C-alpha cells in the first residue's frame, strides 16, 4: 500500500519511526523529518503520536466506564453495563486474590492499568498501513499507532508503579523499616559484627531486585508488542509482491491477528497482576 517506491528496508524503518517533536541542533523547535534528525534531538524530544494515542485511549476508557457507571441500576443490566460489570468483577476477584493488605487505591489502579494497556495493545490489530496512510494523506510523515510499542510509554507506566511501590514501602514500614528491609535480608545474623558485614551484600542484592521490577515490567510489555508489530509489518510487506503473495499475506495476517489476541490480553493481564503483586510486597511488614 504505502510501499510503492520504498525498499522493504525503508518501509520497515518508516513504520518503526515515531513522530518526534523537539529541538533541532540549530536551536529551532519543530518536527523531525528523518530518523537522523529525531536522533539528534536527544533527551528532550517528545513522541507526539505516542502521547496522542495513549491519552485518546485513556479518555475513551474513562468516558466509556463513566457512561456505564452513571446508567447503573438495580434492575436487569444490558449490553455495555453487563460488560463493564464483568470487567470490574474480574479485576476485583484478582485483586482480592493477590492483595492482602487494605488499600483503596489498588483495585482502581489495577482496573485502569488493565483496560488502558488492553486498549493500547488492541491498536496493534488495526492493519499497519491504515492509520499511517490516512495520516500521510493529512501531511503527517510518521505515525506509530500502538503506544505500547514505544518504550517511552511502557517505561512511563512502570516508573509510575515503581514510585507507588517506594511510596507505600515508606508509608507502611517507615523509612527505618524500609531501609532495614533493604539491608538486613536475605542474609541474617545474630552477631552484630556479621550483621554489619552483611549490609553491603544485602543492599546489593535487594537493590537489584528492587530496580529490576520496573525494568522487567516495562520491557516485557514493550518486547511482546514490538515483536507482534514487527511481524505484522513483515506480513504487510507481502502485499507489495503480487496477487499470490498478497493472498498469502492476507491469510497470514488473519492467523497472526487471531494468535495475537491472546498475547494482547495476556500482557495486559500480566502487567496488572504484577503491579498488584509488587504493591502487595510493599505492604508486607516483616
Amino acid at each position, binding site marked *: 500500500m504505502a510501499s510503492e517506491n520504498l525498499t522493504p528496508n525503508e518501509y520497515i524503518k518508516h513504520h518503526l519511526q515515531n513522530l518526534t517533536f523537539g529541538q533541532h541542533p540549530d536551536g529551532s523547535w519543530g518536527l523531525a523529518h528523518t530518523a537522523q534528525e529525531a536522533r539528534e534531538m536527544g533527551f528532550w524530544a517528545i513522541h507526539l503520536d505516542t502521547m496522542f494515542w495513549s491519552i485518546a485511549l485513556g479518555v475513551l476508557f474513562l468516558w466509556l466506564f463513566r457512561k456505564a457507571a452513571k446508567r447503573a441500576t438495580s434492575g436487569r443490566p444490558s449490553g455495555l453495563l453487563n460488560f463493564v460489570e464483568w470487567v470490574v468483577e474480574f479485576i476485583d476477584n484478582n485483586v482480592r486474590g493477590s492483595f492482602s493488605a487494605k488499600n483503596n487505591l489498588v483495585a482502581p489502579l489495577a482496573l485502569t492499568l488493565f483496560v488502558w494497556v488492553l486498549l493500547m495493545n488492541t491498536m496493534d490489530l488495526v492493519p499497519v498501513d491504515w492509520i499511517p496512510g490516512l495520516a500521510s494523506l493529512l501531511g503527517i510523515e510518521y505515525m506509530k499507532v500502538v503506544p505500547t510499542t514505544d518504550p517511552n510509554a511502557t517505561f512511563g507506566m512502570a516508573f509510575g508503579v515503581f514510585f507507588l511501590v517506594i511510596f507505600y514501602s515508606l508509608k507502611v514500614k517507615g523509612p527505618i523499616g524500609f531501609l532495614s528491609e533493604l539491608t538486613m535480608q536475605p542474609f541474617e545474623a545474630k552477631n552484630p559484627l556479621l550483621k554489619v558485614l552483611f549490609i553491603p551484600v544485602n543492599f546489593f542484592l535487594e537493590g537489584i531486585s528492587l530496580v529490576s521490577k520496573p525494568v522487567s515490567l516495562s520491557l*516485557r510489555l514493550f518486547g511482546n508488542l514490538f515483536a507482534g508489530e514487527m511481524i505484522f509489518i513483515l506480513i504487510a510487506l507481502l502485499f507489495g509482491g503480487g496477487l499470490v503473495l498478497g493472498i498469502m499475506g492476507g491469510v497470514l495476517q488473519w492467523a497472526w491477528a487471531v494468535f495475537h489476541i491472546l498475547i494482547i490480553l495476556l500482557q495486559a493481564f500480566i502487567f496488572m497482576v504484577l503491579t498488584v503483586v509488587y504493591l502487595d510486597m510493599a505492604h508486607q511488614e516483616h
Partner: protein
Amino acid sequence: MTLETALLYVAGAVLLGLAGVGVGVGVGVLGARFLEGIARQPELLGMLRTQFFIIMGLVDAIPIIGVAISLYILFAVVGG
C-alpha cells in the same frame, strides 16, 4: 556478500534459534507440570490455568524480545 552482512545474518539466526530452544524447554516443563497438576486434582483446573498463563507470559517475555530483535536485524538492519 561481505563478511559483515554474513555475520549479521548469523547473529539474527543464532538469536532466533536460541530463543526458540529456551522457550521450548521452559514452556515444555511448565506445560508438563500443568498437566500433571490437572491430572492429580482436576477440580483445581480454573486456578491452575490462570497461574499457568501468568507464568507462561513471564517465561515467554525474554524470548519474544529476542525474536523481535532478531527479526529487526534480519530484515531492517541487513536490508533483505
